[in-house]
């Protein structure tokens, strides 16, 4: 039986074909994208950092700040005032009120296990990866700045102006919030954060807190260390000794 193709049949056939192609293609695409991430991020690791303030010199901290700026491309904002410029990592000098002991340390996002910034973010832009790294999804951030109000470490910055010459791995955007990413782009490739590399001593140790064979795990078992604002029970990924 020879049936001519009317308009209805044509639409039916082409729609079915289109849906089929789209379904298969999207499946292929998803598989392709997924396969690029060979090692999925799991909660079997917890990335952390131990900063020994007795070993860390002021020059070391300056070097850490510069390395972070160079790696992530912040700090060359033209219009922002001093208090508007971003500060992903900063040098802090503290004096014990009772003993007068002065300590220098590098302060950045502490990558909390219970991050207040993630709790308060209305759009889920502030998020914590399974391996403990706390990040901002630049596509979801609406720039409400509530996370900055909630962060106990003054670790987050708001981008106050239009930016140019950004790093490919770190898209930053006017009107969104940003902070230390623990150089997640390097960590995912098996490297260590830029600030850690810049220090020539073992004043800063980076690694997997859960891995019993890691240097950071072994060191933390033997030295006295502290979390900043430990009273808040945030279980920070960044630890300090000597303060």
């Amino acid at each position: 039986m020879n049936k001519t193709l009317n308009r209805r049949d044509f639409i039916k056939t082409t729609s079915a074909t289109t849906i089929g192609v789209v379904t298969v293609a999207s499946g292929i695409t998803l598989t392709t994208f997924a396969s690029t991430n060979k090692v999925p991020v799991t909660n079997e690791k917890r990335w952390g950092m131990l900063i020994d303030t007795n070993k860390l010199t002021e020059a070391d901290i300056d070097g850490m700040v510069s390395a972070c700026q160079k790696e992530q491309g912040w700090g060359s904002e033209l219009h922002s005032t001093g208090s508007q410029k971003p500060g992903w990592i900063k040098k802090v000098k503290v004096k014990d009120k009772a003993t007068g002991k002065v300590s220098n340390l590098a302060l950045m996002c502490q990558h909390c296990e219970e991050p207040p910034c993630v709790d308060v973010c209305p759009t889920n832009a502030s998020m914590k990866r399974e391996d403990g790294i706390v990040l901002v999804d630049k596509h979801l951030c609406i720039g409400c700045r509530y996370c900055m109000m909630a962060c106990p470490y003054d670790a987050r910055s708001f981008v106050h102006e239009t930016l140019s010459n950004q790093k490919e791995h770190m898209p930053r955007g006017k009107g969104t919030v940003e902070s230390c990413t623990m150089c997640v782009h390097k960590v995912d490739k098996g490297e260590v954060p830029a600030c850690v590399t810049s220090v020539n001593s073992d004043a800063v140790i980076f690694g997997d807190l859960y891995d019993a064979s890691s240097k950071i795990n072994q060191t933390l078992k033997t030295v006295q260390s502290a979390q900043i604002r430990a009273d808040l029970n945030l279980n920070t990924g960044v630890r300090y000794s000597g303060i």
Partner: protein
Amino acid sequence: MSNIRFEQIEGKSLGFYILVAGLGILVLAALGSVYYMEHHGHFVTGMSNRIVWGMPHVFALFLIVAASGALNVASISSVFNKKLYKPLSRLSGLVALSLLAGGLMVLVLDLGRPDRLIVAMTEYNFKSIFAWNIILYNGFFVVVAVYLWMMFERRMNKFSRKAGLVAFGWRLILTTGTGSIFGFLVVRQAYDAVIMAPMFIIMSFAFGLAFFILILMASYQWTNRPLGDAMVNRLSSLLGVFVAAVMYFVAVHHLGNLYLAENTGVENFILFDGGIYTKLFWYGQIILGGLIPMALIYHPVTKGNRSMLGLASVLIIIGGLIQLYVIIIGGQAYPMELFPGKEILEGYGGVAQYSASLPEISLGIGGVALAIIAVTFLVKFLAFLPESLADDVTGPHHKS
């Protein structure tokens, strides 16, 4: 109350057009400011990484808080069955919605990415009080709009009391949410207090009623409609009680904080040695926004005088803005306790500096203008205002 007739205003006088034009210019100035801030980025504002919420937030939260309070007059009528206030219910709902619209306009346009409003409406983190507030604000529009419909539509009148009850409950939760934005910020010494939620509720009662009284008196004066003393005096007494209640909560908040050693620093800052913030607290919030309005409302010489009640309402609004300035900006200016027991010599600390830029102030005022322009237009197109609130119309019920 069958003898109450609601009627639109004519809205054809020169004064009406001058008012609308004036408010329109303020709204346009606000939009121009937004374009300027959005185009350049927030570096043109006084805000920084320490003072992240500036003058626009002061206005936005003030208007949002006042919005929920403006609904109180309707609630007193519907929920507590006070017949005197029934003729005012429609206007009360209108002022509430208008103030909320003005507040939200300011809040949204001060976002770093106002163009991503759709993200805020589609991506919810239900752990965030901010996300709850987005739902509460949008819900308030729906709840109050339905409530107004029940009041306007004769066939639906029988449901208006129930709708009023829902609206009353909603506004209480809404202001609890707004206060909790601060109350749950445990790391900031100035906030972190559960009392913030009830304090914001009582602040809303006072600010909202002050706005309502001004709008009521102005609209009756400018349209030559009778407004009796029974109504005005009752509202005046209510306003006085609300202002006293705000002062009580402020006193409990600060005295409670002084008792806790960890908060003595920030209390000293606000109450004694905080420079501009201390001055604003005592002269602006307490004297100008609290004691003087109470004196104007209760002193035998000024009691019952409408100009004095108008002045008291204006002072309560100014005092309310100052109160939110002290809470929001002062609370951020005082440094967080990053290292308890240690003094920070470099890298963080000290009192953060802030001075509001003109575009920030303009955006905030634009929100107020939007609220008033909305009321002005809608009373022209819908019958929100009773044609008379003279004592012989409202009088028979004023004791109930």
